[in-house]
């Protein structure tokens, strides 16, 4: 029983971390119809920044700095690699995104020398706590609540503010949005800023629970968050969050099955098999919009 609780706890926590990354994918897709392949690597860079900053600065200064610089990175990537291709075919922008992804990975290899870097233990987050008879880190407990609070704040922003209204308008119709006086490029930048900030928060939570960061450390969580976003219906924020929690929980349950069954090594394969099954039966994902727009 205690074992089951600990597996579920860590599943919810991993799911929450995927959710923070998945929102970045789904927001950008909702507006640009672009799968931002560099997003997982932005997440990795945020993790590396966490290591370097905490080495010289106190946590109270380095964590905000991580968020700010990750936002700057996301903003700059959009301006430099995607904005010049605004009128190009979508495939070209996607290839640009793959290019940025490799640029970030290679730069990280250059800076770190390719060595796995140990993530610092963040006071409080890394401390252990006993829940229902099992020992776990505080980060596991805090993650789902923090994620829900951030998602709630984001949904207020999108549904209740003028900027959010502009984001929803731009996601449907660029040209008419321009005729209303909305600056498309500002709205797109805001989208990247929000996505990067959430990825930065996600990196702190995620890497606190993992021993080390390599230059490709963003690839797997990024891919799974992307799967979560597609699973939930890409473009939908609640979809991405629910998809991420489901994938996190399923994955942890498989990893937690008795070792005599010898299935834990297949947990990643399971994630992708799940995506394939979902897409066969529900091509738009759980909350996705129908493929054809009513004219």
């Amino acid at each position, binding site marked *: 029983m205690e074992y089951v609780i600990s597996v579920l706890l860590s599943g919810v926590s991993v799911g929450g971390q995927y959710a923070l990354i998945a929102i970045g994918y789904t927001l950008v897709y909702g507006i640009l119809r672009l799968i931002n392949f560099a997003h997982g690597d932005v997440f990795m860079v945020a993790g590396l920044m966490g290591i370097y900053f905490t080495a010289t600065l106190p946590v109270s200064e380095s964590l905000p700095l991580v968020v700010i610089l990750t936002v700057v990175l996301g903003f700059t990537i959009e301006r430099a690699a995607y904005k010049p291709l605004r009128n190009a075919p979508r495939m070209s922008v996607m290839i640009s995104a793959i290019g940025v992804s490799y640029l970030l990975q290679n730069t990280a290899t250059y800076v770190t020398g390719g060595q796995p870097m140990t993530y610092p233990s963040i006071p409080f987050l890394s401390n252990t706590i006993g829940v229902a008879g099992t020992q776990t880190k505080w980060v596991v407990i805090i993650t789902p609540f923090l994620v829900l609070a951030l998602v709630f704040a984001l949904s207020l922003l999108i549904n209740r503010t003028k900027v959010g209204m*502009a984001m929803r308008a731009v996601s449907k119709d660029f040209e*008419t949005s321009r005729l209303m*006086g909305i600056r498309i490029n500002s709205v797109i930048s805001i989208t990247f800023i929000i996505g990067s900030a959430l990825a930065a928060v996600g990196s702190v939570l995620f890497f606190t629970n993992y021993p080390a960061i390599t230059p490709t450390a963003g690839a797997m969580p990024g891919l799974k968050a992307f799967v979560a976003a597609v699973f939930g219906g890409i473009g939908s924020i609640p979809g991405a969050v629910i998809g991420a929690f489901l994938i996190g929980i399923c994955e942890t349950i498989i990893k937690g099955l008795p070792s005599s069954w010898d299935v834990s090594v297949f947990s990643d394969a399971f994630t992708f098999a799940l995506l394939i099954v979902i897409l066969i039966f529900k091509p738009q994902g759980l909350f996705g919009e129908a493929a054809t727009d009513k004219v």
Partner: protein
Amino acid sequence: MSEEVLKIADLQVSYGGIEAVRGISFDVKAGEIVTLIGANGAGKSSTLRTISGLVKPASGKVIFDGEDITGKDPTAIVSKGLMMVPEGRRIFPNLTVLENLKIGAYLRKDDLESDIERVYGYFPRLRERSWQEGGTLSGGEQQMLAVGRALMGRPKLLMMDEPSLGLAPIVVQDIFEIIRQIHAAGTTVLLIEQNANMALHVADRAYVIENGKIAMEGTGSELLSDEKVRAAYLGTTAN
């Protein structure tokens, strides 16, 4: 003597080597309804899209309210008080009716309450559907919403691209009645229409566009009684 709100001088627009507009000049004076009529592909929509800043002209000038706005971006043009009702209505289907109205005033920072009331006064149906998503409205209601949305920007000049397109005749009557009311309330209107009969009846002045050039101009009633216009655009030859 009324001042010119909009003056177009020798405007030329090309898309990938095809000249859609080949040197058009016309003007709209304060308080007028001016209409551009012409067949499909004559260059009417291209002209409007260029004025609103969506398309950059190859050459020529667009002077709005005494200021050269040629090639400026739509945000700058909207902020000067030029609003457009685009072809095909293009309301935001995922925004509520009220949000669709508010987004028409996106660049305004002042209180919108009186303008929302004014639009609901023109279109009581929109008030009933205030919380519905735009995409759930009928075609006619969507056209009302598109007009209301543009009015929210308090335009000095309201441009309408084919407001009657795809609507039932009874709804077209309603829309033109609203255009008259809006005009009577002091808004200057530039109207593009294939429905030449309706457009010429409501317009003070009209220009006929053929193959990217102005083929004819005159008051609405002059063109209504012109033999060539009647044959080409009204489909009648006798009274």
